[in-house]
């Protein structure tokens, strides 16, 4: 049985089903990260002392990661554009770049974390480090999730381009929405943890 409205818009919502679905999921993710940011605010305002992020963490690695993630958002949307322009080779290139940049983000994060552990800075060391590792760690898990989905869509999932190209294009749009959200969270996380 065919799934309805995966290409044409549903008349009552005005969008294809997956698009509404992903926005609803992103709404739940807003609650998730909202609760964590809220915890950060409460912990920081209630603490007698609180370090400046840059005194404890590596601002330059994080700035590099910001550039990396924003770039990956651009390559992600360009991979969707490529499919809209019916250029599958370009799609593979841009999606491949997105994946590479996502891996780069994790590798840089790995260097950051190991440097912090090397200096004896663990989640248990202080409240600041606890919320720092929680926030950045959970964000990192979301990056891993995105890599798995995008990796599938780059690899075996790309078979759908031959049979249902418009539905596949919509899948890339929806995956892109998730990926941009992960980027958005980092855009707020970066100044909050590292610069303030």
């Amino acid at each position, binding site marked *: 049985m065919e799934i309805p409205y995966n*290409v*044409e*818009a549903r008349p009552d*919502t*005005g*969008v*294809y089903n997956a*698009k*509404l679905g992903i*926005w*609803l999921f*992103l*709404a739940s993710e*807003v*609650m998730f990260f*909202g*609760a964590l*940011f*809220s*915890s950060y*605010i*409460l912990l920081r*305002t*209630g603490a007698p002392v609180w370090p400046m992020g*840059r005194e404890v963490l590596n*601002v330059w690695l994080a*700035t590099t990661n*910001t*550039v990396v993630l*924003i*770039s990956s*958002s*651009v390559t*992600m*949307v*360009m991979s969707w*554009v490529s499919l*809209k*322009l019916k250029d599958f080779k370009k799609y593979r290139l841009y999606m491949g770049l997105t994946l590479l940049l996502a891996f780069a983000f994790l590798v840089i994060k790995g260097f950051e974390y190991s440097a912090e552990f090397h200096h004896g800075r663990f989640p248990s060391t202080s409240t600041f480090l606890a919320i720092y590792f929680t926030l950045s760690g959970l964000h990192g898990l979301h990056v891993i999730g995105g890599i798995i989905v995008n990796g599938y869509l780059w690899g075996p999932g790309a078979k759908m381009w031959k049979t249902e190209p418009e539905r596949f294009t919509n899948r890339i*749009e929806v995956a*892109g*929405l998730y990926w*941009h*959200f992960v*980027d*958005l969270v980092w*855009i*707020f996380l*970066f*100044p*909050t943890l590292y*610069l*303030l």
Partner: protein
Amino acid sequence: MSSHDDVDSIKKQARAYIKVFVGLMILTVITVAVAYLHMPVGMAVAVALVIALFKGTLVAGVFMHLFDERKMIYWVLALTVLFFFVLLFYPTLSEWDQRKL
């Protein structure tokens, strides 16, 4: 599906994505630079928030196609924003009588 499907309009969107990318890079540089200026904490938070909100609006509006999305999606987001602020402020407000100014 929408007016967005013809080749010219897709190419126009692609140009917009590149412009936004450049804008986001500039804003990232500004974010870091401004953080090294000396200002009171409250002001630093406000400035960082404004820049982050601007970057976020660009990502959401252009990359996530929100600037020309359907009403249904706007409704989902409006409710989300409302509940997000409830969630953000609930723990703080529930402890309001314990605050030390």
